[in-house]
């Protein structure tokens, strides 16, 4: 799949934002006044900014409101609802933290749950696609949730959660890479099944239907070199999980927060880029590309 910057930005930032918001909602980082305003503001900025970025890849963003209509069947619609609900439900808690109203935490907890739901929905948008076998697994939403949780924990320097989550995410990433590599073959879709021509022998492309690119080839067919991918994988695990853990363990909180977040984000972007770039859509079969 084409690793579109807007989608990478959207998923990484909104995931991180919801992670931060969830931590704050749960009251795991007791802050007040300007500090609370800053922390909540950061969480909101990331979440809303990410969601905003997602509209860049829409053909008709002015109709984005319509995306709320199909919550019964569409994970994208559910994501829209969950995101908005999380942002709304968390608002009183945020205000309460900033202005010291002391509202009961239960609302924050509910908001945190909605934030998690939003992230889950984002993950499910990808995980539901049979057409992309690498994504089509519970590990995809688990990854998204783990990224959000770890991001939240790093930004807010919640130890030892962060350290534990680093280990979990690292494990999930490695597992996802490994499982993902065999997923396409395991799904059983081949150029033979895609065309039904395997009855004549193994099919190979003779001529493409168009000599230039089209929407499908641009959007769904992306080829990333194996060596390049292997390097990026290592980088993703190191930057997203291992290095932040080390930084958090070694450095004092304020410095660690900034440094670990930056490193983690770099890792998250690498991982998310790979998430798309390595994902192969079955339509590539028709083009002799997978």
């Amino acid at each position: 799949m084409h690793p579109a910057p807007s989608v990478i930005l959207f998923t990484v930032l909104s995931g991180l934002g919801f992670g931060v918001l969830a931590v704050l909602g749960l009251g795991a980082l007791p802050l007040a006044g300007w500090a609370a305003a800053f922390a909540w503001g950061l969480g909101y900025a990331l979440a809303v900014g990410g969601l905003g970025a997602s509209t860049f890849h829409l053909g008709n963003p002015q109709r984005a409101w319509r995306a709320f209509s199909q919550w019964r069947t569409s994970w994208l619609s559910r994501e829209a609802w969950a995101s908005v609900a999380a942002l709304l439900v968390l608002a009183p808690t945020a205000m309460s933290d900033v202005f010291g109203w002391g509202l009961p935490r239960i609302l924050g907890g509910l908001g945190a749950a909605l934030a998690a739901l939003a992230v889950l929905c984002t993950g499910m948008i990808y995980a539901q696609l049979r057409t992309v076998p690498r994504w089509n697994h519970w590990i995809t939403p688990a990854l998204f949730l783990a990224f959000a949780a770890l991001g939240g924990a790093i930004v807010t320097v919640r130890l030892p959660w962060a350290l534990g989550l680093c280990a979990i995410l690292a494990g999930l990433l490695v597992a996802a890479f490994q499982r993902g590599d065999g997923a396409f073959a395991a799904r059983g879709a081949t150029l033979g099944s895609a065309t039904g021509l395997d009855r004549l022998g193994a099919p190979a492309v003779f001529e493409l239907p168009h000599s230039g690119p089209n929407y499908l080839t641009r959007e769904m067919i992306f080829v990333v070199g194996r060596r390049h991918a292997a390097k990026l994988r290592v980088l993703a695990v190191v930057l997203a999980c291992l290095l932040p853990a080390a930084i958090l363990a070694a450095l004092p909180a304020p410095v660690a927060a900034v440094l670990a977040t930056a490193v983690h984000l770099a890792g998250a972007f690498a991982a998310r880029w790979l998430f798309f770039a390595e994902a192969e859509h079955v339509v590539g079969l028709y083009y002799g590309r997978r």
Partner: protein
Amino acid sequence: MTAEPRIERSPPVSDEVRKTTCYMCACRCGINVHLKDGRVSYIDGNRDHPINKGVLCAKGASGIMQVTAPSRLRAPLRRVGPRGSGAFEEITWEEALETAVSWLRPLRETAPERLAFFTGRDQSQSLTGWWAQAFGTPNYAAHGGFCSVNMAAAGIYTMGGAFWEFGQPDWARTELFVLFGVAEDHDSNPIKIGIGKLKARGVRVISVNPVRTGYSAVADDWYGITPGTDGLLILSLIHCLLEAGKVDLDYLARWTNAGFLVNGTEGPEKGLFVKNAESQPFVIDRRNGQPAPWDGRDTEPDLGAVWDGQRTVFQLMAEEYLRPDHAPEAVAERCGIPAARIRGLAAELAQAAFDKAFLHPQPWTDFRGNRHETMQGRPVSFHAMRGISAHSNGFQTARALHLLQILLGSVEAPGGYRLKPPYPKPVEAHPTPHFVATPGKPLTGPHLGYVRSPADLALRQDGSPARIDKAFSWDAPLSAHGLMHMVIPNAVAGDPYRIDTLFLYMANMAWNSSMNTAQVIEMLTAKEGDAYVIPRIIYSDAYASETVAYADLILPDTTYLERHDCISLLDRPISEPDAAGDSIRWPVVEPDRDVRGFQSVLLDLGARLGLPGMVDDAGRPKFRDYADYMANHQRRPGVGPLMGFRGADGSATGRGAPNPDQLDRYIAAGGFHQAHLPSEAAYMKPWNAAYQDWAVDLGLYDTPQPYLFNIWSETLRRFQLAAEGHGPRQPPDHLRERLRVAMAPLPVWYPPMGEAEGYPVHALTQRPMDMYHSWGSQNAWLRQIRGKNALYLPTAIWEAQGFAEGDYARVTSPTGEIVVPVAHMAALNPHTVWTWNAIGKRRGAWALDPEAPEAVEGFLLNHLISEVLPGAHRISNSDPVTGQAAWFDQKVRIERVGPRALAEPQFPVLPDPPRAGAGRGANFRRKFGRGGAA
């Protein structure tokens, strides 16, 4: 859940439908042009039309893009910079026409042959030829010489009709269909419709073709023959059939010259038919062993007769083809087809022709006056085209294929191959060539024709060729369509002479239509002192093609939806085996710029020059425009360009006085007219009295023209005799041997000429079904489908040189070198490479971006193909009989060069001539009007 959106299921389709004729190939399908707000909105096929019955091909269905193409020219142009510089100024039509007149008038008055007028895939040859005749130049032809004249001439000389679109299998009755070397052909949609019909009936389709794409891909069996060896294969099939006695003796005896006696006595008559006192060949009646007239009512020709020591054609033929060197085992290796497969194909042919034979319950009377209660069905049919004919042995190979069909008794038999009126038409009913130029006078007859003997050759007093293309000379005696591909090289070489003005119409001679393109470009700009060697070039194109840049005066044409055209029985009509048919184009929309239909322009030029037939007695233009000509011109009294709605009241068909309302009647009838054959006349046409009478009534001929098929060709033998030293007209010595071989009276095979050592691989092109030569690429839809081409390599070459995806190869011939992208194809003859024809474009042409894939990666094979054979004498790289360009004789060497992104050679970017504008890179939403292209 919300309710399903309501959708408009029944929107109005268009405001108006106008029915006219498609133009993107010579198939000439009927189209419905839908108009919304006076603009073309959609084009689909006319269901009532005999050719396409509603279907359209990819080009036809995107015809709208031809009209909106930004490459369209806008106004007449005069060159103001050097040739090829693209420096033009727009001028008025008056200036353009007067310029042309000022060039042409002095030529006509002094040396008409100094005008060479050649037209490409012209659909108005009866007009352009007539114009050239009136002008008086011998130098006229259309594209047939570089196209498929081998197929045309071999058909006419053998059976009075050819493949092309001039006949077709009896789709409804045939039980086996064999295609030789066809990728698309002129009969595009009919062949596809036909194959569809066979598939629906489960009838086997067999393709003989080095490449397995398109029709060959759907064929039930594929013979991946080595190029240039079809003659060997076919004669070997004939060997097998003769050996097993599987030939239709009755058919041979009655309808062919198999029973004629051939003079076997050494001397100037050897190989000619034995004639009686009336100079007629005759046969021996098997009942009494006595000579009898060939067309005698009760004659039963004895194929085995020996009379006065002379034997029949049948015996000579059998003797020839039964020889062991025609056995499958002897040819298998050269053809690249195992002997058992050849025998298998022969058995399949015999099974279809004889085991599946049937009697068609249609009584008929033959020309001898014999009544038959039924017609003998022979349900095996063939079709062939350039795969056979674009070789230097193509004429004889096509003859061999016709002989095969004739031996099976299937030509014009139910289930076999059926000709379309005005065919069948024997050689004798065609004119001989006319070529004597007299200042200020028209030619005494048509340029193109069918020579019968050396006496008909177009030679000057000194024996040199009378025509610039050397057609009908010893170089190519039976060149019935001329040699368009030799005009520019000959004119520049001054061989046989120089010309003054080259007048071209719709032929892209500076690119894909020439052999040796790079050098032809140089020839077009070659100078002697300050002057161009070809001093003047006038060209009519509708688009900014490569050739436009090389002309001095451009006459911009309309497109096919904006003009009158006439698809006439006088040249290439739209007949079906069961009906004669013709059709028109008419302006379904008006051009939005200063362009004029070329035919009208030609008539205007003719009138300005005062050419006979184009002016009245007072010297005023006789025809307002082409439409006026279509309705009012008469070729013979009562016979004009269009057969339908003739006579004052429009009730006559074929013969009748001109009708001023004729075109309106055509328009009302959907743009075409048909005259159906009575069912008695539908088969066996060359010998069927009912058909002959119908054809005379319609005006196809003036008297019945029954004839026998020529298994043995006396015409060819006369040339062979000359080559052997007999007769007053003698070929030059350097041509003797090749004439002796190529002019054999029975079909023969000889290796293609001009193959050089060290070039082991055959290189071919194929037409893509979705592109028409060079001009499909200006169609924004089609160029997305096929915007570049690759050279397909067979597995053996691919693997031996370690080719990988993305690689380029250097392809070398004795003529040149190209470096081009390659791809792998398994279903390919192992000694053959090929690519799609004419996808490669010159940078800057066709209003395409100079970085367009067509120009960057697309390529032409033509750079590798020489227009002359190696050695002295500038012998054209053509069939020695007909002058057919031998495009497919090309042999090359292939070397891997690894990944690249640019094909070679590259030429300087052609500057954009003044044209319609927009286009390049424009974001394109609405295709026509509504603010899109123009």
